[in-house]
């Protein structure tokens, strides 16, 4: 329970209208997009400027109140669930894109700005912000940095960490910290942006970023490739990359996902296919044409049937299948668990085989789709959280999926983060020494463990 005197102080800082403490309001901040048990915070505060953040931090620090920074609450690992109660710091009002710089190719944005808005502002200026997580229309940039969000373009363009040039934040003492900057080269002190990416809100409260922008690619071309055997589709992915071509996107849908999408949308997908690849190449028209033809040859050599999108409409239709994959799967059962185990892409077919056998072993419905080009698959488990017996099997299946990914030199999470959902597996991937290193770093900066406690097992 929060002391009345503290609550009064909070209200003085941000005003009555930006401070919530009634149970019915707090419920709205007890969950995020992960399938995890909700936990109710003690207070929610929405700052409207940077000074207010600093003041709130100082009070939390003095009073020993846990502080959980939250944007849109769309992460899939329970990263914003206030496990130990405390204060949720809602960043949604700090939502401005402050600058798009066309000469030096960067953008300055606040932590609560929506990813999609940054991408659009960049595009209006003939520039390109490539990270495009599935939730980009509502996710905030602060969350994207804290979770190192990815998307469909990872293979060629990388993920959020590849675009973060600078960061401003307060540490748990309320000190103002800035890292990185607006220059391409920068070798002053620690690589603080690199440290803050993927830190899941445990090291500081980030409020402003500098992001790298790219020139917008001239043109792009898409194709859909149908396979009778998913292993051939996986081999195609390895072959394309081995022939030194980097498609902008290279997405895979398995048989179950194809059938589900087709049943729901009737867009004309081949329901007897074992796998689909959706491929897009972008860049200079001449290069696009050459790469596109090379890819086509590889696909045909591996028994793929190629359908080319000749116009914007057809292109849209191809991508609709991918865009709707999750929503179509989600409609089958009430509970959807979206995993993001990732393997080196040469191991993609092994991972696909492993997921298939796990699905059979535990008698579960798993649809798999994902970013084949970067080895990041989304095995999607369809279940009902009220079914205790099945949920037990789901847990075991997840254990097995992670184990399989680690055995193939992969990782627990390509883009969703660890949060509370995967914290128990983390040591298995990184080892004791790494956990200890993370803990020392964390306790050095935040000895009372107030910043987003219990995340990543810390």
């Amino acid at each position, binding site marked *: 329970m929060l002391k009345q005197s503290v609550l009064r102080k909070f209200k003085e800082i941000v005003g009555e209208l930006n401070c919530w403490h009634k149970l019915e309001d707090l419920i709205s901040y007890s969950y995020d997009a992960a399938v995890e048990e909700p936990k*109710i915070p003690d207070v929610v505060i929405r700052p409207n400027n940077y000074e207010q953040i600093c003041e709130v931090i100082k009070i939390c620090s003095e009073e020993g109140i846990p502080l959980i920074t939250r944007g849109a609450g769309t992460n899939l690992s329970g990263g914003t669930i206030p496990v130990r109660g405390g204060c949720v710091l809602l960043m949604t009002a700090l939502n401005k894109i402050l600058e798009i710089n066309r000469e030096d190719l960067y953008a300055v944005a606040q932590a609560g700005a929506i990813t999609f808005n940054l991408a659009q502002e960049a595009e209006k200026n003939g520039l390109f912000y490539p990270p495009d997580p599935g939730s980009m229309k509502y996710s905030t940039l602060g969350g994207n940095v804290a979770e190192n969000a990815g998307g469909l373009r990872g293979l060629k363009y990388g993920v959020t960490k590849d675009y973060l040039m600078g960061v401003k934040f307060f540490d748990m003492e309320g000190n103002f910290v800035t890292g990185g900057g607006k220059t391409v080269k920068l070798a002053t002190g620690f690589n603080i942006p690199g440290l803050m990416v993927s830190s899941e809100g445990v090291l500081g409260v980030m409020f402003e970023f500098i992001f790298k922008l790219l020139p917008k690619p001239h043109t792009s071309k898409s194709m859909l490739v149908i396979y009778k055997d998913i292993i051939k589709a996986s081999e195609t992915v390895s072959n394309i990359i081995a022939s030194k071509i980097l498609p902008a996107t290279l997405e895979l849908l398995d048989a179950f996902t194809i059938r589900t999408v087709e049943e729901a949308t009737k867009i004309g997908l081949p329901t007897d296919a074992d796998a689909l690849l959706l491929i897009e190449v972008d860049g200079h028209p001449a290069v696009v044409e050459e790469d596109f033809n090379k890819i086509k040859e590889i696909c045909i050599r591996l028994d793929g049937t190629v359908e080319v999108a000749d116009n914007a409409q057809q292109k849209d239709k191809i991508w609709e299948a991918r865009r709707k994959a999750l929503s179509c799967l989600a409609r089958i059962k009430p509970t959807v668990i979206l995993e993001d185990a990732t393997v080196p892409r040469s191991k993609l077919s092994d991972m696909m085989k492993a997921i298939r056998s796990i699905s059979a072993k535990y008698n579960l419905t798993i649809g798999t789709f994902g970013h084949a080009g970067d080895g990041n698959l989304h095995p999607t488990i369809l279940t009902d959280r009220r079914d205790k017996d099945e949920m037990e099997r789901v847990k075991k299946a997840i254990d097995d999926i992670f184990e399989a990914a680690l055995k193939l030199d992969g990782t627990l999470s390509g883009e969703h983060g660890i949060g509370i959902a995967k914290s128990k597996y983390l040591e298995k991937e990184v080892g004791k020494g790494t956990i200890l290193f993370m803990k020392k770093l964390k306790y050095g900066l935040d000895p009372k463990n107030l910043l987003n406690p219990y995340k990543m097992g810390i």
Partner: protein
Amino acid sequence: MKEIIKELKELEELIMRCMKCGSCQSVCPLYRSDLKEQSVTRSKLAQIESIYEGKLKDTGKILKYIDYCLLCGRCKVNCPSGVKVDEIFLRAKTILRKIEKMKGWQKLILSLAMERPELMGKLAPFMHIALKFSSKKIKNDIYKPIFKDLSERHLFGIKRDPFTKSFAGLQKAQREKSQVLFYPGCAVQYIFPQIGEALVRILNYYDVSVLVPDLNRCCGVPAASMGDLELYKKMVNENLDFFESTKMPIIITCCPTCEYGLKDLGFRITGRAFSGKIIDILIFLEENLELDIVTSLKGKMSLHLPCHYDTHKSNLPSKFLNDHIKADYVTLDNQDCCGFGGTFNLKFYKKSKAISLPKAEEIKAKKIDYLFTPCPGCIMQLTDALISAQANTEVFHPIEKIYEEIKKRN
């Protein structure tokens, strides 16, 4: 109280489809304006859930959160899991209304509007006069009330004669080829009879006879949104009984919300569907008749698409405009709800206005002369906002301009 919790628990099957992904944030006009989770669907579903899961004991607290919703349906259309948000909210409101009863005057107005249509018709001349005496005329047919609480509004006049008083009966086409029934809805009945007239005369011109009912029975949507589903069901049933009794194969509407209430939502709440078709006038004109009218306007025009417009035909109104009205067509960046939301406008006028103003500002900045929208509610709301924004734009239902052209031909 146990009974209420049990009834809310019956919504579990619908609510647990929500995977809390947060997609609703990207389309919810209230969330985008408020920037707090409490305003968005995901949160409201979590609140209902927390009651039947025993986390929130004070059941009476959440009605005001659920009630704070435009029922624009954007979250439902965009929901990856297909959560039936409208149904959940309306059912939950009705259950929660057992704790917090509707205010006396709200109940009175509802029952007058729904259950006593003949009396409403008789009261119209008095309301017409009352509004005139209690307000300032701003421009033709637009009034600004002088009472403090209402003085920020710009209202259309209530007409002395309701639409059905002048048009009831079979309005026969000269060379009748088919017959339809017209469902006017309350806005045409009391405020925009000229839209009803345009609709009837256009259909007559294209050889369709139109049966206009003697009485306009409300579609019931306001009752549903106030938390009285029983009254809503009663209105749907009465209307469908009447439709069936006329043996008309087609019912024409010109208010998408009435259509939604009598068709889509009506079916889901009552389990009953009309044996023929209920169609919006623009869709009927485009798909059933050879409309050869092309009228020209000087200046720029744009379209506001109403929230409850048939989702499968959402491209039709812009095509209709471009095919039949020649003017410089401008697409608006702001494709949000106008903020009206029927009873939402009465309950939360300030917020309702705050949502419509950015759209009005864009319309003003783009110097749009004519804004078309196939919904009387949107016409009221956007007219109010445009006058507040000091824009010179006029708002019409598209068929009003079509009728003007027909009158020229005759």
